[in-house]
């Protein structure tokens, strides 16, 4: 069992937890993930690590409430326990030797983009961040990004805060203005990462995307997290858990990844409703 050291709601649909897991905290690097189960008989879900504190053994996770498991996780209070917590899994984001990077985050993906930005800043890399949200209420981590970046652009899809539009707009402007990046690192919804990649392509800037497919074991056993890369005209299968989660974005078959990500949506919708009803009933009693 793993203790919840702190809990903070970042917005109505996104919550941050710190979990006591010293072995994970000791090893974790930016870009790696953990797998957790909230309860016995619960499902295993992967969440990217949003930060660690080696002194307290805390591992920070930030998640959006999208289904039954994240709903249950969101109902856990400080001091309570979750069943399982394993990691750090996957490979850290490769930032070695980069002088100037652009980090493009979207929605809850910004929680994962932040430690990458921080790690870059720490090693002396100049960071330009573009973060986007659907609206003002869903904005998270603006101050933290400001602290980690030389320049920060905030976007909202509906214009309710900061600049109106999606993240590809300022990215394109910067690239057209001749700004140079050793790499663009993008973390967020698949559709956003796909369009970031398409935007960057004419400028020849390398793009790395952090993938977050459905997983079970997360250790290279089940093959659930497979995705297809187009390498030199060949389609090759790779596994996000052991080969990723970061991949050369130009090679990723995003459309396939989007389709596979929707495999259990009807099941999840039903499970989420049932869980919500259970919590509602419990509140009424």
């Amino acid at each position, binding site marked *: 069992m793993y203790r919840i050291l702190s809990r903070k709601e970042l917005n109505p649909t996104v919550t941050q937890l710190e979990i006591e897991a010293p072995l994970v905290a000791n090893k974790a690097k930016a870009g790696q993930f953990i797998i957790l189960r909230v309860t016995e008989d619960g499902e295993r879900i992967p969440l990217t690590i949003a930060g660690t504190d080696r002194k307290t053994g805390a591992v920070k996770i930030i998640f959006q409430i999208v289904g039954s498991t994240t709903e249950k996780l969101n109902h856990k209070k400080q001091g309570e326990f979750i069943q399982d917590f*394993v990691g750090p899994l996957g490979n850290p984001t490769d930032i070695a030797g980069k002088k100037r990077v652009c980090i493009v985050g979207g929605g809850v993906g910004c929680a994962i983009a932040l430690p990458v930005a921080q790690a870059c800043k720490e090693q002396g890399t100049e960071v330009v961040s573009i973060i986007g949200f659907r609206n003002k209420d869903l904005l998270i981590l603006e101050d933290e990004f400001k602290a980690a970046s030389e320049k920060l652009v905030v976007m909202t899809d509906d214009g309710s805060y900061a600049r109106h539009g999606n993240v590809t707009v300022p990215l394109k402007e910067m690239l057209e203005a001749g700004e140079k990046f050793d790499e663009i690192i993008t973390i967020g919804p698949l559709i956003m990462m796909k369009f970031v990649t398409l935007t960057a392509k004419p400028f020849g800037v390398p793009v790395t995307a952090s993938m977050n497919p459905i997983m*079970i*074991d997360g250790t290279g*056993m089940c093959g659930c997290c497979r995705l297809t890369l187009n390498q030199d005209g060949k389609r090759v299968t790779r596994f996000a858990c*052991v080969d990723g989660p970061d991949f050369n974005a130009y090679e990723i078959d995003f459309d396939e990844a989007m389709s596979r990500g929707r495999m259990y949506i009807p099941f999840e919708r039903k499970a989420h409703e049932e869980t919500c009803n259970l919590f509602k009933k419990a509140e009424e009693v």
Partner: protein
Amino acid sequence: MAINEKMHAMPVQDPKVRARNFNEVALGYTHEVALEEAKRCLHCKNRPCVEGCPVNISIPDFISCLKQDDIEGAYEVINKSSSLPAVCGRVCPQETQCESRCTMGIKFEPVGIGRLERFVADWHNENCKKAPKKVTSNGHKVAIIGSGPSGLTCAGDLVKAGFEVTVYEALHTPGGVLVYGIPEFRLPKTIVAKEVNTLKELGVAFVTNAVIGKTLTIDELFEQGNEAVFIGSGAGLPNFMGIPGESFKGVYSANEFLTRSNLMKAFRDKCDTPIMKGGKVVVVGGGNVAMDAARTALRLGAEKVYIVYRRSMTELPARREEVEHAEEEGIEFHLLRTPVEILGYNNPDNPRDERNGFVTGCKVMKMELGEPDAKGRRRPVPVEGSEYVLDCDTVVIAIGTSPNPLIKNTTKGLEVNPHGGIIVTEDGLTSRKNVYAGGDAVTGAATVISAMGAGKVAARSIIEAFK
């Protein structure tokens, strides 16, 4: 006294009934039948059955005890050589091991050694409540990576020899393939838990949620005071066929399909982990894993399950018993067939159609058997123009696995072969000092008992090394 020529039949659940439940198929001998079957052992001098057993159980000796109705005595004999008798009695391919060497088997049917082993182990688990006696520590610490059959065997032998043993497991439940791979109807998980518990009572410590190579490295295990490490991390990533359509929704590797059902309990109604249930299912492959996947699909409610295998029944590698059980349950075998494409739904008018990208069928091609290959198995040759489509909703690919890269990538000086399997000596020693390995991590996908044999060899070497 007349010799009973036939092995006593194993009572089983009726095929029609069992095809729709996850209860164990084979029900086990009764006390009376077990004693009768034991009487069939001739106690021949050369004891060929013992050599046929990868962990060399003193088979005639445990059968002697049984003949005298000393079942606990029989258990003690088995337990000297095997830490997992209730598991082996169920999943070992006895027909190609101990029973294939049985002298009775020359003229008649061999003694039902596996069935007797299972009876003895189940009787012990049912009737013997006293905790096993702990052995005094010899002060040497050993870490074991993976709690599958090789790790559990190695742990059992070492703890009985006085070592302080810690087993590290990546998943949330100990047991490895016994828990995530082999289905409930062949090996109930309570039995695995019981065997793990016996090891705990003997003093073995289990650490779950620990991925060696990530959470801790082998070097750190040594820094923590372990003097030897055994790697029993099992098989790794599933192989795919590289044909079009393998990424459609509804295509699973057997590892994923079985893990969802077994480890994550998707076969139960009240469960958070989803799995595709019902419809028509194609399982590709002819090994035990393919049989397990096909029979699981059936029990999850499939209306039709096909096994597609590229050779004929003669070459099909699964245990005969599993194949017979599958056939009795109504699984259809499409032999001498190979999948060439998986077909998926696509609504060109509506890209948001929820059915888009889901499997609709599997195109297969007929094969003929040609010349024998390097292993002596006749090579299947495609028959051009023979393709046809099997309509289906789910495809499960059970064509083997490749070794897991995690430990290799994080352990300096650990040599692997071109397939990624860890290289070991006859004694189970790797290229790293005091690091041993065995099971699928070394051989690639094989059987539970061969992994147990490897765990045993490594334990013996470790005991020798620290005498």
